[in-house]
């Protein structure tokens, strides 16, 4: 594996907000096909790291490489077009649009008809729109969401909204998918469904996934490798077993005294 170039390489990246180092010295290598977890206590900088990867923030130090190509400074929409797509911690669907439209928007860059073509309703417009719609419907079927096709996104049950957000992120045909707390607010049954969904999409779409999650059952259950972030720095990485027993991780989560107490 080491000889291959990693799909995503984060090379000493970090960001400063004024004098505050929110995230720093991040070193990560994610290889194609991996399912990697990113955990850490609240405020550790997990979402900030996602925002760095997706271009919402521009790193003030280090670099981020996708397939050996530098992503620093590209606007988010270009990074999405290059193959990183994401979901959000608090669901960000296009609430007043239909489920179908939500997915079709992710197919935006697939069709090439221009604004003028659409205004004049030239043939290219119809073929492009038709292709988008057909693909989106096919896609919704894969996620069992096609029955909700014309429903407004905000009217879906919570679990289905999460599902739709993941579907939408996948419709942008990413190489790397970033899931930000996909199980937040879910009950055990829904979490279980989600685990199956994550395994399913990974196989179906040959994806590489990075997952932020607080639900340890889910993280330990699906992730092959885990990075642990605390106070903006990576404090540990490894397979779930190692992470579970890593004193630094226990310390970050439970505090120093407890961990030393636990060791004794």
């Amino acid at each position, binding site marked *: 594996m080491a000889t291959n170039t990693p799909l995503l390489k984060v090379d000493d990246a970090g960001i400063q907000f004024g004098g505050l180092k929110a995230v720093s010295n991040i070193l990560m290598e994610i290889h194609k096909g991996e399912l990697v977890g990113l955990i850490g206590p609240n405020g550790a900088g997990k979402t900030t790291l996602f925002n760095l990867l997706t271009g919402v923030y521009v790193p003030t130090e280090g670099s981020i490489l996708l397939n050996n190509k530098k992503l620093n400074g590209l606007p988010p929409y270009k990074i999405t077009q290059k193959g990183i797509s994401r979901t*959000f911690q608090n669901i960000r669907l296009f609430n007043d649009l239909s489920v179908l439209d939500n997915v079709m928007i992710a197919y*935006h860059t697939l069709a090439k008809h221009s604004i003028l073509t659409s205004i004049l309703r030239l043939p290219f417009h119809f073929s492009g*729109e038709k292709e988008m719609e057909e693909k989106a419907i096919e896609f919704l079927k894969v996620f069992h969401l096609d*029955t909700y096709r014309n*429903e407004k996104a905000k009217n879906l*049950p919570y679990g289905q909204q999460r599902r739709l957000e993941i579907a939408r992120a996948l419709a942008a045909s990413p190489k790397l998918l970033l899931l930000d707390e996909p199980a937040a607010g879910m009950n055990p049954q*829904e979490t279980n469904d989600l685990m199956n969904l994550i395994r399913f999409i990974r196989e179906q779409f040959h994806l590489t996934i990075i997952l932020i999650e607080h639900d340890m059952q889910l993280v330990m259950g699906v992730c092959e490798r885990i990075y642990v972030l605390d106070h903006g720095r990576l404090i540990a990485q490894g397979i779930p077993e190692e992470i579970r027993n890593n004193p630094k991780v226990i310390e970050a989560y439970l505090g120093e005294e407890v961990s030393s107490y636990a060791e004794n």
Partner: protein
Amino acid sequence: MSILKQSKGFWLSIGLAFIVFFIIQFLIVGGQLNPFYVNMILLISINIILAVSLHLIIGITGQFSIGHAGFLAVGAYASAIITMKLGLPFWLAILTGGIAAALSGLVIGIPTLRLRGDYLAIATLGFGEIVRIILLNVDYVGGASGMQVSHMATWPWVFFSMLLTILAIRNFTYSRHGRACLSVREDEIAADAMGINTTYYKVAAFIIGAFFAGIAGSLYAHNFYIIQPSNFGFLKSIDILIYVVLGGLGSLSGSVLSAVFLTIVSTFLQDYPETRMILYSLVLIIMMIYRPQGLMGTKELTSFFKKKPVIKEESQDGNKHTIA
């Protein structure tokens, strides 16, 4: 033929529009319609163009712009220069009015569309005022006393401009570009994360909206015999904004209906000049209390005729629980 791919309802509405056009044209030519009503009909159509063009910017793309009278002014003066100063034909004036306004939309759009919400509103308000003040101080276009413009905006010109505007905005909205604009309105961060170039679409909507506002300006100028900078003040922008808000943000037919409704109310209230603004405001207040979502909400007229697709509730994954 791609043009035949439109739905039956589409051709029905086009047909209806043409019938209305011919009836009114017939009445005007025959002289049965007195000039007061003719003028009102022209005014309604021009206001529809304005409402629909702002609808694209505010209702579809969600960019709160209150400088629309600025584009109207640019279009009006540009077209007046073409016909009155240069003596060129009217169709060229309409086109020039649109293009001049679109260019000003581009110039003003690129720097201001980084702003959001209130800040964008203030910036566009500033743009409207700048246009007005510039026109007030340029002697070539008559300064404060304005420009004499001959009446050229006849019913066919106005009608076809209106029809083309509505069609263009509708076609834009129901395409991948319209959806991109909608996604910007719904959630700009998510739109960005879906690969949509949000700045591009905000500017595009701004330019298209400005273009049609410029066309409305050309018609406006050639309907009133005289244009003065004071016609294009802040209140004019607010008038247009009210059409869009009252019609229901995001509803094309709503903007059209409210432009028709409010123009009629405002025209008839001219008989009571001392209470006119009070009554007009009362109508707005009552409307907003009883229909806070606007006349049409986000719905379109056509959605009342469509049969709702029957969707069978299938429990495919047993995932029916909702948690707060």
